[in-house]
């Protein structure tokens, strides 16, 4: 809608160019990206499941409590792989498949830390480490707060 209104203001030559460009620009391989993300994301989740079974089998963790050590382990592994430069390659191939699982969080923290390493430890690494992950923490906490609020209202007064 917006784009069409803007386009009306363009001169005929510009409009012509726009169509010319649209015909020739490379198409975004959405389906291919989705399939890649699906499979790589699935592999990451399978590894997570294996780790949680490992903790349940060898330690006294139940299905209820196994989440915390599993998440910690997955983040730790993705941080190591980011440091070694392996995770970047996986991310290049998989896109959202490697960014959406919790491993993407570890990648975001470490890659920001590596990027700002040259600016020193305090003002470089220290202040820039959570540049990307900070928003994950903020909105994650906020979303959890909102959901908890809704649940409390629904169970206390809504009679659910």
């Amino acid at each position, binding site marked *: 809608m917006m784009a069409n209104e803007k386009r009306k203001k363009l001169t005929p030559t510009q409009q012509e160019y726009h169509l010319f460009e649209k015909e020739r620009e490379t198409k975004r391989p959405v389906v291919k990206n989705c399939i890649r993300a699906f499979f790589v994301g699935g592999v990451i989740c399978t590894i997570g499941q294996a780790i949680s079974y490992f903790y349940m*089998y060898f*330690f006294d963790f139940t299905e209820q409590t*196994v989440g*915390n050590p599993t998440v910690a382990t997955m983040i730790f592994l993705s941080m*190591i792989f980011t440091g*070694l430069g*392996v995770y970047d390659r996986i991310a290049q191939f998989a896109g959202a498949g490697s960014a959406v699982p919790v491993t993407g969080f570890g990648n975001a923290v470490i890659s920001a830390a590596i990027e700002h390493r040259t600016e020193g430890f305090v003002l470089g690494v220290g202040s820039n480490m959570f540049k990307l992950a900070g928003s994950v923490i903020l909105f994650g906490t906020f979303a959890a707060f909102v959901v908890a609020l809704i649940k409390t209202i629904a169970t206390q007064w809504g009679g659910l």
Partner: protein
Amino acid sequence: MNMRKWLFATIVICIWMGGCAKEQGVKQQSLQGSGFMKTNTNGEIQRNNINQQTAERAVARIKERDDIKDAVAVNTSEKLLVAYQIKHMHRFYRKQIEKEIDQQLIRLFPNYQIVSSSDLKIFWKTEELRGKLGKKNWNEQKVDEQIEKIRQLSKERT
């Protein structure tokens, strides 16, 4: 260089995973003396087999349900420990199923203190305990203690 990176990563993971595993020595030590048989004063072997009929009945009743994949149970004269696995797609209704089974068990076995869980770890633990019952000639108090331990584990939230 790349090879070295992979090697380093593999070593780190192996050491780290290995460090978490229980040591064989500690395991073996705790098993020492488990092969002995307890005897009465007249030299007869003590048999402490606890009647497991209640547990078997509970398992049979739970397995009747079509949303249950597998069930296992152990009982003493006071306590009944039941663990079951819910079929994959039925896990969406997990809380409701748990509630129904709890009520069913309380109705069927009013004289028992019932511990029930759909947790996989509790299932494994219960299965392990049932296996030990057959082998180890534990007395009832010891089994009660084990059931209490499993109950506490199932209550843990963090």
